[in-house]
């Protein structure tokens, strides 16, 4: 406990400020090959022809790989959790987003690798692309995924993440007003200063040493081992130094392909994405489409919420079903609403696949919920702090998925914000706490949802 309350140096601080930290790109292995990728120039197309023979025969080119070189072509990022795979490591029959990797070249230097990529013959037949999640459900929408235009494998083979709680019909019948809003935060690129990079060294004993910038080392190890169809003890991952990730280095973006190139060429291989590739091809935070309709009373209680979420998963599933699940659990935000009807879909589009970013799945819904709380206050002519405090999660309240709160922090947080802003509050609000609801703070509609904190 010596560290609590002390002001301590970062363990890596001196190395950082003297330039001694060894990032993946700084690892020096003599004879390392450089990698370049042939990426899809189209958003959506069938692959009619792919010929790498000319590239493979060029001077200085040591290995070229396509889908044919991958022992297990499809392995989902959530396969370990039983969620089926949908994405080939390298495109085989079609491409579904601009920048999707099709073939990779490892060569003596960067220029040779790039020249070889340009010598690959690729024949594409372009197809209509889908970018708007709202149009994915139309009968004439482009068909972009083998599972349909939205993810169909939630528990019980449901095609959506669904939450039903209480009696939504009753709530809307009893409401004094219905407050509606649509919220659409856009995609965000993580922009780590260190682009995606890895270096793979084939060792004499048959193992691969993989220098990785991953944020999820053991997870990446599992993904690489699965694609390569080798046991985990063939892979030695070296990680822990990440030049910025923010969620964007959870996906296994480079390690598997570099491993295949290292095995095929028998030489150390490095792949460092350009900034352009990082913007064009790396996964982003998802764009979200959220529609909320709340049944409210004129004194500011929220009786019920209907919500529809369309989560733009991009071209493949990756982590999106997990992100949407987190999103659904948080769709009432820091507030207690007893009657709920939530439907969320992971929609496939021809965007780059989306992924985790700081508060995966939750930041989007927090933005929507907080904006909506202020909208309710405005439409009802009430104070935005008071309506938040009134509906705030308290001990004994239950979340959308039935968790009983034992230590919620909504009330003290909102009071602290009010203090910082100098916002005046009436005495009964000023003295609120997170304690169990009683009296006026336990209106009839909240009685039925109360749980037993001791049991959790």
């Amino acid at each position: 406990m010596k560290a609590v309350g002390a002001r301590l140096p970062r363990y890596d601080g001196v190395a950082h400020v003297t330039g001694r930290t060894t990032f993946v790109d700084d690892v020096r292995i003599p004879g390392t090959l450089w990698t370049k990728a042939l990426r899809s120039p189209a958003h959506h197309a069938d692959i009619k022809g792919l010929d790498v023979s000319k590239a493979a025969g060029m001077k200085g080119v040591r290995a070229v790989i396509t889908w044919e070189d991958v022992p297990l072509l499809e392995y989902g990022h959530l396969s370990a959790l039983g969620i089926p795979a949908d994405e080939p490591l390298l495109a085989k029959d079609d491409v579904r987003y601009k920048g999707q990797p099709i073939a990779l070249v490892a060569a003596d230097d960067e220029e040779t690798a790039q020249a070889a990529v340009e010598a690959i013959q690729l024949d594409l037949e372009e197809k209509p692309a889908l970018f708007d999640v709202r149009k994915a459900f139309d009968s004439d929408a482009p068909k972009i995924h083998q599972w349909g235009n939205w993810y169909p494998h939630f528990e019980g083979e449901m095609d959506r993440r669904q939450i039903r709680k209480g009696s939504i019909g009753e709530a809307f019948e009893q409401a004094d007003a219905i407050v509606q809003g649509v919220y659409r935060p856009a995609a965000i690129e993580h922009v780590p200063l260190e682009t995606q990079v890895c270096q793979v060294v084939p060792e004499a004993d048959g193992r691969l040493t993989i220098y990785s910038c991953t944020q999820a080392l053991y997870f990446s190890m599992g993904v690489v081992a699965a694609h390569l169809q080798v046991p985990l003890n063939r892979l030695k991952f070296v990680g822990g130094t990440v030049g910025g990730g923010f969620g964007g280095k959870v996906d296994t973006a480079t390690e598997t392909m570099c491993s295949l190139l290292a095995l095929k060429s028998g030489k150390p291989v490095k792949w460092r994405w350009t900034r352009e590739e990082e913007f064009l091809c790396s996964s982003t935070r998802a764009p979200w489409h959220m529609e909320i309709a709340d049944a409210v009373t004129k004194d500011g209680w929220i009786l019920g919420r209907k919500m529809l979420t369309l989560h733009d998963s991009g071209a493949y599933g990756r982590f999106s079903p997990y992100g949407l699940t987190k999103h659904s659990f948080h769709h009432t935000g820091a507030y207690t609403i007893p009657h709920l009807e939530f439907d969320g879909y992971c929609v496939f589009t021809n965007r780059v696949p989306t992924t985790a970013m700081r508060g995966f799945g939750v930041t989007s819904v927090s933005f929507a919920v907080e904006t909506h709380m202020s909208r309710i206050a405005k439409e009802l002519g009430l104070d935005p702090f008071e309506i938040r405090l009134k509906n705030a999660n308290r001990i004994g309240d239950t979340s959308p998925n039935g968790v009983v709160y034992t230590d919620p922090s909504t009330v003290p947080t909102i009071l602290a914000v009010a203090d910082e802003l100098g916002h005046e509050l009436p005495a009964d609000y000023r003295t609120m706490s997170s304690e169990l609801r009683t009296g006026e703070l336990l209106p009839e509609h909240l009685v039925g949802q109360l749980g037993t904190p001791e049991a959790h």
Partner: protein
Amino acid sequence: MRLTVNGGEREVESAPLTPLLHVLREELGITSPKAGCQQGGCGACTVLVGGVAQRACLLPVAALDGADITTLEGLGSPEALSPVQASFHENYAAQCGFCTSGMVLAAHAYLEGGGTPDRPSIQHALAGHVCRCTGYVKIIDAVAAAAGGEASSNQRWLPRTGEESPVEIPGAPA
């Protein structure tokens, strides 16, 4: 071609239009300048050329024959941090560390040019240096502290309230 790099004379054999960044990293093995964008947009490759902060990714080496180059390795050592390095360390201005090399060198040049703790001036001096971790506040704090002479060696580490002696942490400056 000849360069003076961190005080030492180096012969360089790269082709004339090779960017200085590539020469430093790939030919000379000096890795503190980072290839963040290679388009002059992020500042992570910054080095001092004759004491002036410049982006190594945009400089063809042919234009630098005889130039005096300083990278972060040449500023101070782990045992003897320069004032700006010490201040970055003490103010937690380095998080992931990838932009730090360019930030420290730009800040060093700012102070050598008579920079003051004035925050807008510091912001101006660091314009074009991208950091995605810190939100810049601690970086500006660090430069301001160094400009105000507040950077010191190991005076900012504090024990928790009520304890008498500083906490010993492996890796902390003695």
